[in-house]
């Protein structure tokens, strides 16, 4: 059945445009980062030194995950708009199979994100801070956490897409939740609770570089450590896919 999914996705120009945009924008952002001046000093090559590069890169890449979320929303809402989910059920696909394909697709997108970060990390690290190359593999496991983060965010995007069924409102709702609704909710909730909200949990997987230093000035952060956030992120991911399945199964197509 996944072959059918690939038949839909591979010839679709929108997919390649968004993926290209993800790579190019992330590369440009990381490249431009070296020219940024902080307190009158250029960040320069220090940005690209191993092993800290991996945490910086995954943190920056987490902002670009929204592009992958938007892509998945488009791919799912297209199926409602073209009524192809409906046709595939008529043709003999089960709702579980259709959703399983989207889950596998989101896995592929997560792998794509991880490979992009890996590629850019090696490229910038080895070309701009070659003297730290011996430590290139230290902390590289953070990319796996980044992959889980992408999967989590995509599960949220899938739920929004199944719920709304139209690309424009779906993308808007997804961005509104990530950028406005949850931050506002966090504002009104005590720190002990807001760190368990889904977007915050996913963000906790790729923490802000130098958070430890900031903590010494502002006091300890309420955010979960990546290791604490990991099981919760997996639970949220499973929950969102499960809800998407129930919605799809119990509504008319």
């Amino acid at each position, binding site marked *: *059945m996944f072959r059918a999914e690939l038949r839909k996705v591979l010839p679709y120009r929108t997919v390649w445009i968004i993926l290209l945009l993800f790579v190019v924008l992330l590369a440009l952002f990381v490249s431009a980062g070296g020219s940024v001046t902080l307190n009158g000093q250029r960040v320069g090559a220090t940005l690209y030194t191993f092993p800290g590069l991996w945490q910086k890169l995954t943190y920056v890449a987490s902002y670009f995950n929204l592009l992958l979320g938007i892509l998945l929303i488009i791919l799912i809402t297209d199926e409602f708009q073209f*009524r192809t989910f*409906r*046709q595939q059920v*008529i*043709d*003999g696909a*089960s709702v579980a199979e259709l959703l399983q394909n989207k889950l596998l697709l989101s896995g592929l997108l997560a792998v794509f994100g991880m490979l992009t970060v890996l590629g850019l990390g090696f490229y910038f690290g080895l070309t701009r801070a070659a003297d730290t190359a011996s430590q290139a593999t230290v902390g590289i496991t953070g990319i796996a956490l980044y992959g889980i983060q992408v999967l989590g965010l995509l599960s949220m995007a899938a739920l929004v897409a199944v719920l709304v069924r139209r690309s424009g409102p779906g993308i808007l709702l997804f961005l509104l939740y990530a950028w406005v609704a949850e931050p506002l909710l966090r504002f009104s909730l005590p720190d002990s609770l807001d760190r368990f909200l889904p977007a915050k949990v996913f963000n906790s997987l790729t923490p802000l570089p130098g958070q430890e230093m900031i903590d010494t000035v502002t006091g300890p952060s309420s955010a979960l450590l990546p290791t604490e956030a990991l099981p919760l992120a997996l639970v949220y991911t499973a929950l969102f896919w499960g809800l998407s399945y129930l919605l799809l199964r*119990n509504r008319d*197509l």
Partner: protein
Amino acid sequence: MPILELDNLSKTYGSTTALKGLTLSVEPGSVYGLLGPNGSGKTTTLGIALGVLRASGGTVRWFGQEPNANNRRRVGALLETPNFFPYLSARQNLLLAADVKRADPRTVDQALDLTGLGTRQHDKFRGFSLGMKQRLALASTLLGNPEILVLDEPTNGLDPQGIAEVRDLVTRLAADGKTILIASHLLDEVEKVCTHVAVLQRGDLRAAGPVHSILATADRVILRPAPDTSIATLQQAVAALPWVSDLKPEAAGAYSAVLATGHGPADLNRALFEQGIALAGLEVRHRSLEAQFLELTR
């Protein structure tokens, strides 16, 4: 064993009832026409049977089993509009459908040839006319050699030649023993190809059965009494026959009546003769399916 059985099927959308306890079964080898005006519940019926609409009540059985993905793969179905990916070519869309149906990809070529799309197979679906889209949908239903075809308004958007081609295709498939369930407005077409029909009106089943029996109930016998027979005598004699109903005057001193199933004009002639009434003429006026449909859905 029927290929499809619907038992007491109902569907409500909010306060609107789209189907009211529909029961019917489609036997193997039959060409079953589902008739009804817009909003009568034809597409809702097919949507529930095909698993894309949830029934509010009742049951569906395909091949004697609960509906599931496996038995849906034994069905080739076109429901409402042709649904394909606009950015894919006709061929790519059919290959995708073949994957979903677990059908041999080689059947794609046969389906393209049968529907006359061979020369346009590499064109994108978005560039197709409505007629071409409908042909592609028909091609998709044929993939994997399904045991039954479910066609919802298959001639929508087709020109007269296309309509004739679809009718020929359906006739050919039916002649090969394929079971076909077809919802259509084109009563003339249905009458030509269907062996059975069900007539729906506002979610109610008005009539169902073999086409000849549905039409037989619509046939009227025209009686021309001999000149010396009084009308009162004729009415009295007819009233004594419980299988004759709806006696009414026609033009030129003739009368018409409806005979119950199992009784023919010869029975009527004999029964009247036994009561001393001679007829100068007796004939059967056949009604078209269209006339019967209009009567049933009035």
